[in-house]
């Protein structure tokens, strides 16, 4: 039995008599991340210089009550860090005191926060059980509209398709709009694909000196400052690899600004900012900022290419989009790549070109799946790929859904047992059931001049095994080979030949048998 004593009640009461000390609350709980000076401990968002604690206090109260999750922009930097909710920890009085302290000390004397306001926000958001996102909060409690150095900004939109920067003087505008925000954005075109835009404005230069413009876009773009074309992005490519940083000397006053932009297809993004003699941080003239927002961050993040080096095959174990969570990637020296599913005991993805970009999982917390970095990903199969004797091993396959509330035990006939690397780092995967096992080796091999892979499967044990090589792709015999889907050609090079059906390719091996297959890309 618990024994709440009279003494306990008395002590608790006496504690709550004292006026809440906001500095004390801050220095006990908030300080661990935001720092004693409000500047943010390493890697965590500051309060000083941030718009978040300013303005309507409801925004801050909501964050403290329910926390904040996902990407957030603070004082010009992007973060992807969860703030844990404190609503269950702190009373209305303590939250009011802490926020009053924060607003007074770190937010340039923003007004005090009353416990009553906290109480009303708590009541109004009582149904909320998950942390807020920055987007939700800014929709409800926006920052004041940004004012930039672009004055009298006008955006002109043209419809059409171009493979180079058009001569805008010969085009007929489809739409002309004043952009009073001083911000350029492809969204102002109100079209997804097949348009061009030209923005013109006066750029207010605050003082003489050297300015650096950063510019990137998807797809084409050209930036003119003071009548000079200072940066150009050519061709169709995603954002990230073509970023320009250009210095230019400017004199105080208003100078002509012009930005030309062509969107062919796919994503549309413009990143444009500048820093000057007195500002070391970029001032943004575009809605997307370098490293701002999750999608833009993904696009603008400096890639960490993982690739075969000196003939040694690269590997990558992490969440790879298109296969299951127990993914093992291998990138071969001839520009072919595979992703093996440890859950399903087979290679599920093949692709060519770049192997993987490590930046997604190796910067910040690494949430989510990273797609292969190369092209033409072939999805060979989905689901468990091995049929052995009926005895299940009792292994459990996880439910793969994002929000599964129920999952069940699914006995499977075989388990992934690991892999061995040869001298060049090429993998041989091992799979075993109760009465059988097989190895599955992959090496880079050019077939008839085209980059490809050789796969050797060797069975052992007492019982035969059937392995799904492809499922859900059209299989057609042609010139002694099998065309598997639109990209892949599979050849039986020696040993047991696979069995082709309309949309399935399987291989059945008895103990001691083997098969060597050649994979090439069309």
């Amino acid at each position: 039995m618990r024994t709440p004593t009279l003494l306990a009640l008395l002590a608790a009461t006496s504690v709550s008599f004292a006026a809440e000390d906001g500095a004390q609350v801050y220095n006990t709980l908030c300080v661990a991340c935001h720092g004693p000076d409000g500047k943010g401990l390493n890697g965590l968002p500051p309060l000083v210089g941030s718009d978040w604690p300013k303005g309507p206090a409801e925004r801050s109260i909501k964050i403290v009550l329910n926390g904040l999750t996902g990407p957030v922009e603070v004082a010009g930097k992007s973060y992807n860090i969860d703030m844990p909710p404190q609503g269950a920890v702190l009373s209305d009085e303590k939250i009011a005191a802490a926020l009053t302290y924060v607003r007074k000390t770190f937010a340039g004397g923003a007004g005090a926060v009353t416990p009553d306001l906290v109480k009303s926000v708590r009541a109004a958001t009582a149904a909320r059980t998950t942390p807020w996102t920055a987007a939700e909060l800014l929709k409800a409690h926006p920052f004041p509209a940004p004012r930039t150095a672009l004055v009298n900004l006008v955006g002109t939109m043209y419809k059409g398709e171009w493979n180079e920067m058009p001569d805008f003087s010969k085009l007929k505008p489809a739409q002309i709009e004043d952009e009073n925000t001083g911000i350029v954005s492809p969204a102002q075109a109100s079209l997804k694909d097949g348009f061009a835009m030209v923005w013109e404005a006066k750029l207010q230069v605050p003082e003489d000196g050297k300015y650096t413009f950063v510019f990137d876009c998807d797809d084409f773009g050209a930036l003119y400052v003071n009548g000079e074309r200072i940066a150009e992005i050519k061709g169709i490519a995603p954002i990230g690899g073509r970023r320009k940083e250009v210095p230019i000397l400017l004199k105080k006053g208003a100078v002509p600004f012009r930005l030309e932009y062509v969107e062919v297809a796919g994503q549309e993004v413009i990143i444009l900012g500048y820093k000057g003699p007195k500002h070391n941080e970029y001032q943004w003239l575009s809605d997307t900022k370098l490293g701002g927002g999750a999608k833009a961050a993904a696009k603008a993040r400096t890639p960490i290419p993982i690739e075969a080096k000196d003939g040694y095959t690269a590997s990558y174990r992490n969440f790879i989009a298109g296969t299951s969570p127990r993914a093992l990637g291998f990138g071969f020296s001839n520009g072919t790549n595979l992703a093996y599913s440890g859950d399903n005991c087979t290679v599920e993805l093949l692709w060519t070109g770049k192997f993987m970009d490590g930046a997604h999982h190796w910067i910040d917390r690494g949430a989510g799946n990273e797609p292969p970095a190369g092209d033409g990903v072939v999805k060979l199969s989905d689901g468990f790929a091995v049929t052995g004797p009926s005895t299940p091993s009792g292994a459990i396959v996880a439910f793969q859904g994002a929000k599964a509330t129920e999952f069940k035990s699914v006995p499977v006939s075989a388990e992934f047992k690991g892999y061995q690397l040869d001298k060049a780092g090429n993998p041989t995967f091992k799979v075993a059931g109760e009465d059988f096992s097989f190895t599955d080796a992959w090496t880079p091999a050019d077939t008839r001049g085209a980059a490809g892979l050789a796969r050797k499967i060797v069975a052992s044990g007492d019982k035969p095994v059937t392995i799904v090589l492809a499922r859900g792709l059209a299989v057609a015999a042609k010139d002694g080979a099998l065309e598997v889907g639109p990209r892949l050609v599979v050849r039986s090079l020696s040993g047991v030949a696979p069995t082709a059906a309309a949309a399935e390719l399987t291989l059945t091996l008895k103990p001691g048998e083997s098969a060597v297959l050649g994979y090439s890309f069309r």
Partner: protein
Amino acid sequence: MKKFTVTLLALLVLAPFASAQAKKKAGKPPAGTEALALQDQYYERVQIPTPPGEVVEVSSIALMPGKKVAIATRRGDVWVCEGAYEADLSKVKWTKFASNLHEPLGMFYKDKSLFLTQRPEHTRLTDTDGDGKADVFDTICAKWGINGDYHEYAFGTDPDKDGNVWVVLCLTGSFHAYSPWRGWCVRVTPEGKMIPTTSGIRSPGGIGMNEKGDVFYTDNQGVWNGSSSLKWLRPGSFQGNPTGNKSAALLGFPDPPEPKSGSRILTERIKFPEFVPPAVVLPHGKVGNSPSGIACDMTKGKWGPWAHQLFVGEQTASQVQRVNLEVVNGLYQGAVFHFLQGFEAGLVPVRMDQEDGTLFVGGTNRGWGSRGSQPFTFERVRFKGKVPFEMHDISARPDGFEVTFTHPVDAASAGDVASYALDTFTYIYQSAYGSPEVDQTKPTVKSATVSADGLKVKLVIDGLVRGQIHHLVADGVRNKAGDALWHNEGWYTLNEIPAAK
């Protein structure tokens, strides 16, 4: 009134000595940066240079024969360091043993292989051709669920006396159980069998064993955790968070407890005998914010006079805390004290070399920041031989606590009840995130009796509260040289009050 007189008298008698002490040393025990400055007298903390140009966010540390130390990183690399014990660390040599595994958290060396627990599986890495690089990667056990969520961390131990590795499996996103066995501790046998061992886990930061081989893990403040704490993984137990309970049905286990939210741990654990309460609560914001790795001192004095105490890493504050444990009525309980600070990043793995007395720690600031200013760190700490004046341990008695000190105490200050202050509190046990401190009480120290050797003080307390955290501040205690304590406070989790014999 009588007490007041006695105290006043004591003050008068002590006054001349007190002022002498004040000249020698300010009466207030050191805190913050002062404690850090003192640390250098007792412990030498050195950063070990990591491979140049490499991102080495240390996530696991293993000791190998020949004074080699292996580390794994969050990016999944495994490096072997030679020279980590040397005086001249500029000559350390690093060899890359493996690349790009899946966020390994827990690694040990055995039978010429490195074993590591990575997110999807427990794995053995072997270099069979002797070229210094792993070429065989045996999947020993991959039977727990993962679904692509970055928070589904898996922390593994060294093998226990049966050769089993204990793995604690964080909840999906630290809130949900979207895959089998999230929120459980499982044991992995050498043959790869998985034995679900305890339910009730939330978000672990590390796992380790005490000298008896009992296994403990740290769980972070959040849903059902009013504060972070050090918990004992008694097989068959429920650790307090019911989110992962549904996995029990997968193997036909009985349903783990469904505790009532808004209650107290003590109330609920009396209802559910399998509910093992936290051995030592690490009060949130006071002791730390995110506890991590666990190392036991079995160095026979090489690490200082802390035989069998646990040393617990702290990510946010870049610290190492010290914990003494005892068993009362079948449950572990004990006290936590601040200990080492000033590490260069948020600590995750801690590894004690039991032969040598060197503590290796590794840290990372990625994703979760810390007081340390560097993105990652690998450090070594050694005891310099000078024993700091500390509360060695706090032990529960039927009528109070016995505090053991590391130096003989000054009988006048240590025998004065005014040298101590005690308060107790607990947390709401609830499904919401964290909890305020509640049920505060202020027990009275009725007497303080110093042992003949001056090393122990028996505090008779009026108002011990079962189930609460007892925060003892021994501000006024001095050793015979007149020094104050290096760290003057400890937090004892009084799960059980021992019965009088």
